[in-house]
């Protein structure tokens, strides 16, 4: 994993003067699965869309095989997108209700492999449907005839039919029921193993991200606050936000009696984060004066473990759980 496939540098996105994404930098390596966690509104989906140039970045660059995706000419971008595919959160809304499932999955082939004749295309679609656990006969049906989990398989089939080098999954299992989530996670693991596709996997479900990621990015209020391998992150997270996030995951098995849920964070009253310094400081139990004035830079605390916190080098007392 030496050569970065994707190199994101200082990526920032503004929505009407509000910074949705600030100075995001990271690399994604070939064959790697990068997990991206954070609360809603933290900028996870904005990052996915900015990388694919589905929305305009204020500044920064996204380097992909020597080309900057943000500045390259439209025809170049179009050709490059063949290798950059995305699976969206809402499986039904991301399929065209008036196209058959077969046409939906065949559309990328029509665009990028125009030389392919109808019969060959049909064979590719049939093979792909089987690959994602559906049957070739389903190609003639419409999205509304399928369940949420099946629609997500169709979305994955459309994204994978061109064998992309990078698959961005934006909360692909969040809208699915517990018994179906695992089916989709397993499918993604299988596809990745067979095709070697790199993945950016966005989710607010920490257990799922831990399960399939090689490295995890933690985002808060449009900035990356921690980057680490899952084992390091889940065993010894450094940023107070990550710690609180992990402490808040409900136990999957109830403890004896009714254990109190940890309430480690100060809960914010206002809808907007503070405008200066660290965006987390108004909820952080460890905030000090410097946090009010200066945005903490992302710094490497241990090899491969990056944290954006002014107090990352101190041994902070563990988060207490006030009543």
């Amino acid at each position, binding site marked *: 994993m030496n050569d970065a496939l994707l190199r994101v540098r200082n990526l920032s996105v503004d929505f009407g003067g509000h910074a949705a994404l600030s100075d995001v930098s990271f690399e994604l390596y070939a064959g790697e699965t990068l997990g991206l966690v954070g*609360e809603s509104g933290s900028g996870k989906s904005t990052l996915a869309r900015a990388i694919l140039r589905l929305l305009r970045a204020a500044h920064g660059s996204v380097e992909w095989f020597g080309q900057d995706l943000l500045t390259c000419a439209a025809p170049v971008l179009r050709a490059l997108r063949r290798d950059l595919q995305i699976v969206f959160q809402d499986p039904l809304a991301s399929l065209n209700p008036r196209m058959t499932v077969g046409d939906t999955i065949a559309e990328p082939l029509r665009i990028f492999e125009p030389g392919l004749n109808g019969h060959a295309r049909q064979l590719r679609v049939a093979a792909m449907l089987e690959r994602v656990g559906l049957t070739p006969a389903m190609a003639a049906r419409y999205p509304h005839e399928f369940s949420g989990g099946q629609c997500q398989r169709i979305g994955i089939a459309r994204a994978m039919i061109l064998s992309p080098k990078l698959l961005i999954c934006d909360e692909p299992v969040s809208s699915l029921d517990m018994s179906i989530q695992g089916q989709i996670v397993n499918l993604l693991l299988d596809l990745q193993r067979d095709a070697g596709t790199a993945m950016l996997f966005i989710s607010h479900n920490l257990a799922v991200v831990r399960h399939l990621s090689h490295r995890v990015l933690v985002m808060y209020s449009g900035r990356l606050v921690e980057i680490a391998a899952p084992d390091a992150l889940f065993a010894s997270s450094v940023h107070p936000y990550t710690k609180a996030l992990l402490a808040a995951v*409900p136990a999957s098995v*109830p403890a004896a009696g009714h254990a109190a849920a940890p309430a480690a964070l100060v809960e914010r009253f206002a809808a907007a984060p503070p405008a200066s310094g660290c965006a987390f400081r108004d909820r952080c139990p460890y905030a000090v004066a410097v946090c009010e004035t200066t945005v903490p830079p992302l710094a490497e605390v241990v090899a491969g473990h990056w944290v954006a916190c002014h107090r990352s080098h101190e041994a902070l007392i563990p988060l207490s759980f006030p009543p």
Partner: protein
Amino acid sequence: MTPTLSIEDLSVSFSQRDASLEAVQRVSLAIAPAECVGIIGESGSGKTQVFMAAMGLLASNALARGSIRFEGGELLHADAAALNRVRGSKLTMIFQDPMTSLAPHLCIGTQLAEVLVCHSGLSWRDAWSSAGRMLERVRVPDPKRRLHQYPHELSGGMRQRVVIGMSLMCEPRLVIADEPTTALDVTIQAQLIELLRIMRGEFGMALVLISHDLGVVAGLADRILVMYAGRIVECASAQELFRHARHPYTAEMLKCIPRLSGPRLARLPTIAGQPPRPGELLEGCAFAPRCPLAQDRCRTERPLLSNAGDSSVACHFPLPR
């Protein structure tokens, strides 16, 4: 002792063009005063519709049969005037999205005070000061000032605190919380569950917690009902359910929850297949097509909920305790 809510043989179906879809099938349950009951099920399992029927909030094409009694009085097919004597005061509901359950054009104080003005006949002045005290009780900081603020000025977690406060204004006997934390982040979710626990202690009301997330229900509920395809398939104490699930669906579902420990990058356990579509008619057990233990009898004969002490299970071949 009269149960706070008692539902008997409730079925809810929706007429759709020429078909009729059965969303809830012959559900019976009772909720004792001050009890907390968790309702677990996947989307489409009918868990919300049971309580929408109790609140008189079913869609216009719904047909409900059976009986729903609140403190002895029949709610099903009661007229609006009779419903409104308990609904919103003694029997209240908290919905998933705190943004859509608050009116965007009214300040927090007005929305909270209105409950007392309408249901208890208080003056606006008295109701307003009660509203302030309620914000304090649901741990909203600086309550006097917050009364004058509008929903969009509040974070999602604070909005849900206001909604919880609103549901408690008339000291209800039963609060139904339908996925109260699903729209919120995990850090906020933990704080709201903690708030519900504290409020239960302070107000002594019964609480129904509807969720697809076992983790949310686990810490709070005395008893958990598991629903599948419109029916209750298992009922047990939280401890009992997690330690010795007896219905294969419950057992399989527990295995599916991804953990924060254990091996990574391996295949996750799953339940093969899909839940039946609404309206799909199955002769036997609705879980039989996906059940690893299903036998011929399961495909022809529907299992009934059988009582065994405090727990019950609807399965021909339940797992040993």
